[in-house]
């Protein structure tokens, strides 16, 4: 349900003029919800930032998430590239 919970938050926040991007582990559900921008990561539920205490990987995921903010061809669904 987290995928929907986060997607709905994106919709409300974008409507108020603040751009958003989310991480998703469940692209099938993200495609149904259609949040404005999402980054698909190849990790199980509970691991959106990849690996505990892996600073480099977590930072790279945030960088690619931030890069989606420059996209306006919503809904955007990109895969993490490492």
């Amino acid at each position: 349900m987290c995928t929907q919970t986060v997607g709905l938050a994106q919709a409300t926040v974008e409507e108020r003029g603040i751009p958003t991007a989310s991480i998703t582990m469940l692209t099938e559900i993200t495609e149904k919800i259609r949040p404005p921008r999402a980054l698909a990561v190849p990790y199980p539920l509970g691991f959106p930032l990849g690996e505990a205490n892996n600073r480099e990987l977590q930072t790279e995921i945030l960088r690619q998430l931030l890069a989606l903010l420059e996209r306006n061809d919503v809904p955007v669904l990109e895969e993490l590239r490492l």
Partner: protein
Amino acid sequence: MVETGELSVELQAFLKTYSWRRIDPVPKASLSTPIRECRVALVSSAGFVAPGEEPFSHSMHGGDHSLRVIPGAMDVQSLEEHHDSDSFSRAGVDADRNMGLPLDRLHELAAEGEIGSVAPRHFSVMGSITAPNRYIKHTLPAIADLLVEDHVDIALMVPV
């Protein structure tokens, strides 16, 4: 990535008849400043609660839709996790709270000049909301109000 076919049998059965909320039309806000100048906030659905705050309820019908505010200056590892779902492994967030709310990473990006600043407030909800009407009507406008009040330029959202 996870396929829905990999989820528990109970969850798959629930999802088979669940009516997802489709966002239509998809709203679009645009950046007004370069990312390196933006103030960034996090919204996490990991069910985190600051020490001493009320835990999320595990008995509310349709899921606890309430909100917890996480100060940007707080020690992220001190957060308590109160998510009401057994469909994900806790191993990641148990070992490192940045897995659900990457606040340390955000501070590092700000220190390195990759973003402008870290917002003073971040937001925690409990993602297992199956009946989201109250969440949409009350919680989300409250989050948006606080983001606007804090002059946030970008909100990054993290599900677990």
